[in-house]
């Protein structure tokens, strides 16, 4: 590898991972309240699949099962996948996604601590490219009929017209791209009763839940405050700047911060210790880069939310970021970094 250790291992991986899971609970609670308990089914499905896949691959690789299974990292990946996939997606979609994450993105690259890409985000990208339609069918806010959601997940015959609703991000992009409608951001978000005026009804509360959990993680010392701050500040600044130029065509910072996966990305995805940058300055660049790319993909791209693609793109840059932000080696008189650059 290029430089300093990729993983800064705290005393116990499992303690950290379970705190991360606990921090997701407020967001999940809001999710259940606004979009029904279907998400709990997806989380259960994802967790079982992740543990089974992890155990199977560990057995094949001849690694001790108990030690690695108990660390909880597979569970975190599984929960993130469940939370980023539509909660009414058919069961096999999430199972396949988790398999991609655990088998391909994690273990083919060497297992925990070795994977250059965030496994949950790899799963999202693979599945949205493979099944764009299924991955764009989100439940409408306020739809909490568990039986209908159960049928959507496990039923062979999926009648979704009553359930499916465009997410605020999708609706915004769709309408703004039609020149003849002369739509404005305010018109789309404000006139439509199904969207709240911050991040979309329901979604903004889920985002608040993630925010609360994330702040608790910072307070517990599990994640550093720099990554989420850099992420949210960048996303806020860039969306704010464009909204100042033309508020009719570009949604403002409050919308961007409280919709889609922004909060999840800031506190739970960009903070991944394995696939993120290791240096302090590097982490800030990494998080800011994800936020910038997310905004670009959301505004001009072809796929719904941009967090996953942005994360993978920045994952690729991590070795470079780390190399460029390394502190000079202690004791060197020239003050040159190992790669010969003047600091």
């Amino acid at each position, binding site marked *: 590898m290029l430089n300093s250790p990729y993983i800064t291992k705290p005393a116990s991986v499992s303690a950290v991972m379970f705190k991360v899971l606990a921090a997701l609970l407020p967001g999940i609670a809001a999710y259940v309240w606004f979009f029904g308990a279907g998400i709990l089914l997806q989380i259960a499905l994802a967790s079982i699949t992740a543990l089974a896949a992890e155990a199977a691959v560990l057995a094949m690789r001849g690694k001790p099962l108990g030690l690695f299974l108990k660390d909880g990292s597979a569970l975190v990946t599984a929960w993130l996948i469940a939370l980023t996939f539509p909660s009414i997606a058919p069961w096999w979609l999430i199972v396949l996604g988790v398999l991609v994450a655990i088998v391909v993105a994690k273990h083919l690259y060497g297992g925990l601590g070795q994977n250059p890409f965030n496994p949950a985000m790899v799963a999202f990208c693979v599945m949205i490219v493979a099944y*764009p*339609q299924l991955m*764009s*069918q989100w439940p409408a806010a306020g739809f909490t009929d568990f039986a209908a959601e159960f049928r959507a997940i496990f039923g062979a015959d999926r009648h979704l017209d009553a359930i*499916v609703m465009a997410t605020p991000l999708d609706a915004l992009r*769709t309408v703004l791209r039609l020149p*003849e409608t002369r739509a404005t951001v305010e018109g789309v978000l404000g006139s439509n009763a199904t969207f709240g005026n911050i991040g979309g009804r329901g979604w903004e509360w889920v985002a608040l839940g993630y925010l609360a959990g994330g702040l608790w993680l910072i307070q517990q010392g599990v994640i550093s405050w720099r990554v989420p701050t850099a992420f949210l500040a960048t996303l806020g600044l860039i969306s704010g700047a464009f909204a100042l130029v033309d508020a009719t065509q570009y949604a403002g910072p409050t919308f961007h911060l409280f919709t889609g996966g922004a909060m999840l990305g800031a506190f739970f995805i960009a903070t991944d210790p394995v696939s993120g940058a290791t240096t302090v300055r590097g982490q800030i660049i990494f998080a800011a880069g994800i936020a910038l790319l997310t905004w670009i993909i959301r505004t001009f791209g072809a796929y719904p939310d941009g967090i996953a693609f942005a994360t993978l793109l920045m994952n690729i840059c991590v070795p470079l970021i780390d190399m460029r932000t390394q502190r000079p080696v202690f004791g060197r008189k020239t003050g040159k970094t190992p790669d010969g650059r003047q600091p």
Partner: protein
Amino acid sequence: MSDPQDRLPLDDTPPAPGEVQRQPGAMKVSARTATVLLLFTIVFTALMAFTHDMTKPILDASAQAQKLKLIGEVLPPTLYDNDLLADAVTLPATPALGLDEPSLAYRARKGGEPVALVFEACANNGYSGRIGLVLAVLADGRLRAVRVSQHKETPGLGDYIDPKKDKNKSNPWIEQFSGQGYDLALGGHWKVKKDGGRFDARAGATISARAVTNASGKALIWIAERRAALFALPAGTTLQEKTP
């Protein structure tokens, strides 16, 4: 790659011909090299020219066939008996068709009677890039059929507008426009259901459908209102719009 390992024992010629011939003066060598290169160029250019002449008639025929095939998808050849490709008029660049360049409209006739107009249109607000359309409008103002001739919509999401990519083979999405009259478009119902119109769109992928629907509706009105004038024009001329 060029290590001697690659030379097998069955080699029976002296190695690297150039090395032996490097003795004469520089001028002579360059002249010889140039001659050889020139000869090779002439021989192989001749080979290409020969193939070109051999294949040209076939290529012309297949380009023609390609065009007729696309037209045949919106208007079966049994419906007309004239030489369709020869009986064409030029349409000026028309925003209603989504085209910023002049295009051709082909006139199908049977026994001299007008049957249908086949023309191109373009939807400029698809999910990614322009969506090219080919339409056939019957002489009574109904849309015979519309087909997508080219598009860059997301594979698996918006590309069902092309019946070749549509999972529903027995009743492709684009078939719902066939046979609809232009009065439907005039009445403002030539829209997807989500926008309060008559036509279906697949859940989660409305943009491509909306683009095709709106563009075909606008094109249908424009052509249908001018169909008498278009059929009356002499072949090869350009439609002159009266000043509004």
